[in-house]
C-alpha cells in the first residue's frame, strides 16, 4: 500500500488498463490509487464520522443557499422601534437584535463568512506549515535546529493574546487580512507535524531508490515524500479548520475579528454580549451553529485519523 516506488511519468495512463495484470510489476511502479480507497472504505464504516460529513454538507448547502433560504437580508434594519430585541417567534425564529435585524438571516449569512475564513486561513496555514516543516526536516542539520526553535518559540506564545494584539493593532481588519492573520499564526503545529513525518519517511528504501535513479531534491520532496505523508497533513488541516472557526468566533466576540457590515457567528454574539440575560437568543443560536459545525468538523477529522492510521 506504500506509494509508488517510482512515480509513473505524468500523462501516461496505461496504469488503469493494466490494473491487476501480472505485467504491472515489471513496469517498475505499483499501480494503485494509493491508500485513499482503503481509507474511504474504513471511513464509511465510522458512523460518527459519516454523520459529521452529512452535517458539514448540510451546513455548506444552507449557507451557500443563504440568499434563497434566509427570510431577510442579513443587514436589513426592519423597524428600529417596533421590531428591535424581539424574542424568538414564528416570524423571527431566532429573534431580532438591538438593530432590529433578523437573527436567523444573520446566522445563515454569518456562516458563510465564518466558514470561508476558517477554510482559507487553514489552507494558508497548511501551505506555509508544510513548506516550512518539509524544508526543515528534509535539509536537517543546524538549519533544522534553528527553524524548529523558532516554531517552538511561536508555539509558546498564548495564541489568543498574540491574535488579540495583532488584530487590535491592525485597527479594523478586512476579511482578507483576517484570513492572513489567522493563517499566519496557525501553521506552527502543522510544520512540526510535517517535519516529524518527513524525518520518518526520509530514510526509507524507496527514497534511496528514487535518489539512485537520479531524482532531484525537489522532485523527491514533491513527488515522493509529500504525497506519502498527505494523510496526516489532511487530518491536521481538518481538525485545524475547527479550531480556526472557534478562534475567529472568539476574536469577533471580543470585537476585534470580523467587522460590520459583515455578520459572523462570533460578532452576532457580540451584539448581545452585554445583555446576555435579556437577549439570550443572540448568544444561544449563533453559538449552537458554531458548536454544530465544529463538532461535525472534529468528528470528520477524528474519523479520518482512525481510517488513515496504518496501525489499526
Amino acid at each position, binding site marked *: 500500500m506504500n506509494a509508488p516506488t517510482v512515480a509513473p511519468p505524468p500523462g501516461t495512463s496505461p496504469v488503469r488498463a493494466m490494473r491487476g495484470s501480472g505485467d504491472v510489476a515489471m513496469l517498475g511502479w505499483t499501480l494503485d490509487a494509493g491508500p485513499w480507497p482503503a481509507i474511504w472504505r474504513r471511513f464509511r464504516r465510522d458512523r460518527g464520522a459519516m454523520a459529521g460529513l452529512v452535517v458539514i454538507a448540510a451546513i455548506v448547502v444552507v449557507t451557500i443557499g443563504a440568499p434563497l433560504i434566509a427570510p431577510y437580508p442579513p443587514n436589513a434594519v426592519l423597524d428600529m422601534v417596533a421590531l428591535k430585541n424581539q424574542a424568538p417567534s414564528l416570524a423571527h425564529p431566532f429573534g431580532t437584535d438591538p438593530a432590529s435585524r433578523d437573527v436567523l438571516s444573520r446566522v445563515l449569512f454569518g456562516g458563510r463568512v465564518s466558514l470561508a475564513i476558517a477554510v482559507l486561513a487553514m489552507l494558508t496555514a497548511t501551505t506555509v506549515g508544510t513548506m516550512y516543516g518539509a524544508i526543515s526536516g528534509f535539509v536537517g542539520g543546524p538549519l533544522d535546529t534553528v527553524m524548529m526553535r523558532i516554531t517552538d518559540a511561536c508555539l509558546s506564545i498564548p495564541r489568543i493574546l498574540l491574535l488579540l494584539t495583532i488584530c487590535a493593532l491592525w485597527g479594523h481588519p478586512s476579511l482578507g487580512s483576517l484570513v492572513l492573520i489567522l493563517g499566519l499564526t496557525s501553521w506552527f503545529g502543522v510544520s512540526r507535524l510535517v517535519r516529524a513525518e518527513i524525518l520518518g519517511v526520509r530514510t526509507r528504501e524507496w527514497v534511496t531508490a528514487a535518489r539512485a535513479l537520479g531524482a532531484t531534491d525537489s522532485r523527491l520532496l514533491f513527488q515522493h515524500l509529500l504525497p506519502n505523508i498527505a494523510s496526516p497533513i489532511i487530518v491536521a488541516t481538518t481538525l485545524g479548520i475547527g479550531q480556526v472557526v472557534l478562534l475567529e468566533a472568539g476574536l469577533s466576540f471580543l470585537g476585534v475579528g470580523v467587522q460590520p457590515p459583515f455578520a459572523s457567528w462570533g460578532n452576532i454574539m457580540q451584539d448581545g454580549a452585554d445583555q*446576555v*440575560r435579556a437577549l439570550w437568543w443572540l448568544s444561544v443560536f449563533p453559538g449552537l451553529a458554531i458548536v454544530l459545525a465544529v463538532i461535525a468538523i472534529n468528528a470528520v477529522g477524528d474519523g479520518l485519523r482512525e481510517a488513515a492510521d496504518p496501525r489499526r
Partner: protein
Amino acid sequence: MTTATFILIHLAPGDPIGGGLDDPRVPAAVRAHWRAVYGLDQPLTTQFVRYIASAARGQFGYSFAYNEPVSTILARALPRSLALAGTALVLSFVAGVAMALIQVARHGTATDRILGITSLAVYSLPEFWLGQVALLTFAYVLPIFPAGGMVDPVMHPYMGPVAALWDRIDHLILPALTLATLSAAGIARFQRAALLDVAADDYLRTARAKGVPERQVLMRHALRNAALPVITLFGLALPGFLGGTVFIEKVFSWPGIGSLAVDAVTARDYPVVIACAVLGSMLVAGGSFVADVLYAVADPRLRRATGPVRPR
C-alpha cells in the same frame, strides 16, 4: 518576544494618544505636551531602549489608560487570574484523568462511547459560549450562583472574614467549573489514547496473569506508565488554557489578566497589551519548566541522564 511585540505595535496605524486626544478640537500644543510627558516625541530607538530598561526592572512602562505603572496593574490582576486558573487546572486534570480511566476500564462499552462523544462535544465548544450558557443557566434561570464579578459589589465590604471568604469562593465556583469542564474534555481525550497505547503492553498482561485485581492493574500499572503523555500535555495545554481564561474572565467579569488584556486592546493601552502578552508567555515558559521537572520525577530513566534526554 518583548521586542517583537514592541515592533509590531509601533508598525501599526494609530496612536496611543489617539483615544482621548484624537478630537480635532484639542489644540496641537496640548497633544505635543502629552506626547512629551509619555516620551512619545523621542525617536523610536530611544523609546525602545527606555522600554527594555523598564521591562528589565519589571515595570513594563506606564499605562496610558490607568495612569499607573503597568507593573502595579499586573500585580493587582495576576493573583486573581492565578486563583481562577489554578483552581480550574487542578479540577480539570482530576476530572479528565478520571474520565479517561472510566472509559478505558469499560473500553468498547456504551459508557466508553457516551463519554467519548461527550468529550468530543465539549472539546468543540467555544469557551465564551459555554461561559454565557453557564451564566444564563446557573445565575439567571436557576439563581444558584452570583452572576459574574469577584465579590458582591454592594455587601462585600461589610462582611465578616468568614462571610467575605465564602463570598469569594461563591463567585469563583461557576467560572472555575466552566473553565475546568472545557479543558477536562481535551485531557480526557488525550489520556484515554495514552492509556490505550499502554493497554496492550506485556507488563499489564503479566500483572493480570499473576492475579492482580483489574482495578489495581489500571490504577497502579497502566496509569503510571501513561502519566508521561499527561505531563507533556500539561506543558502543551498551557497556552490554550490561558486563552480559555481570557474568554472566561471576560464573560464572568473576572478582573484578572484576561479581562485586563481585552480592555487594554480596546483602549489601545499598548504598554498593558505588551505586558499581558509577555506575562502570558512567561507563565507558559514557567509551566513548561514545571512539566520538565515533573517528567524527571515521573520517569526514573530521565533522572540518571546528565543531559536533556528525550524518549524517542
